[in-house]
């Protein structure tokens, strides 16, 4: 059972990984605020998604859950590949997610808009895309010759950016990344979870008249 908000990008890696392994996942979206839930899961709702196996085994945090429900091939079949998968998963969590959230959440009304922070996030993400571009010029996938948790985690971390703010001008210069992104989201295991992914045609903007806050 996966306890999560509906359509929550942090749950997608685990759900996509389960498509590869065939693990049947029952999604429960409520009640994530109840005392009963909070008492069973010490990390509380701040750690949604939360997974509970049929045997009562509990695990928190999207990437760890994805690891658990993955087949070995997704985790990396040899030590070098599994270490590289770790590297890219951590890269997604620490280098991609903060910038995407800073840039995109205000366009969704989920955070206050701050022009300076948005600009810094945009520049940082461009640096991230450059690193990915270099790598994906000569590699079909991030690790080895097929999809791994590395691709799944990085795709899910970039999802909001690709659908909300990376319009065609912003995508220019990152052709290999976009090719790889589209290849991934069109895999049946991805599309079963994500549905049809429409790349951004016109960037969403946060309202410039909304109150600006210094973070």
């Amino acid at each position, binding site marked *: 059972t996966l306890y999560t*908000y*509906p359509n929550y990008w942090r749950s997608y890696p685990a759900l996509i990984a389960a498509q590869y392994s065939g693990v049947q996942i029952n999604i429960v979206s409520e009640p994530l605020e109840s005392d009963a839930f909070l008492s069973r899961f010490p990390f509380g709702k701040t750690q949604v998604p939360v997974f509970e196996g049929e045997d009562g085994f509990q695990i928190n945090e999207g990437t760890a859950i994805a690891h658990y429900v993955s087949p070995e091939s997704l985790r990396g079949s040899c030590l070098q590949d599994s270490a590289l998968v770790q590297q890219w998963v951590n890269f997604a969590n620490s280098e991609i*997610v903060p910038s995407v959230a800073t840039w995109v*959440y205000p366009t969704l009304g*989920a*955070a206050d808009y701050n022009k300076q922070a948005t600009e810094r996030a945009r520049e940082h993400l461009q640096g991230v895309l450059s690193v990915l571009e270099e790598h994906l010029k000569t590699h079909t996938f991030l690790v080895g010759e097929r999809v791994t948790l590395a691709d799944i985690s990085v795709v899910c971390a970039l999802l909001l950016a690709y659908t909300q703010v990376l319009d065609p001008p912003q995508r220019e210069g990152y052709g290999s990344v976009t090719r790889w992104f589209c290849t991934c989201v069109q895999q049946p295991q991805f599309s079963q979870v994500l549905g049809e992914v429409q790349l951004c045609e016109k960037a969403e903007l946060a309202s410039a008249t909304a109150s600006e806050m210094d973070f």
Partner: protein
Amino acid sequence: MSAEYLAQEKIWFDKHRYDEAERQYYERMNG
């Protein structure tokens, strides 16, 4: 897409600032 749960996330918006501060600190410490 509901933004309510996104708004509850703890995102480290200042991460770049601290990464840069960390880098400069360790470079300074080691000449």
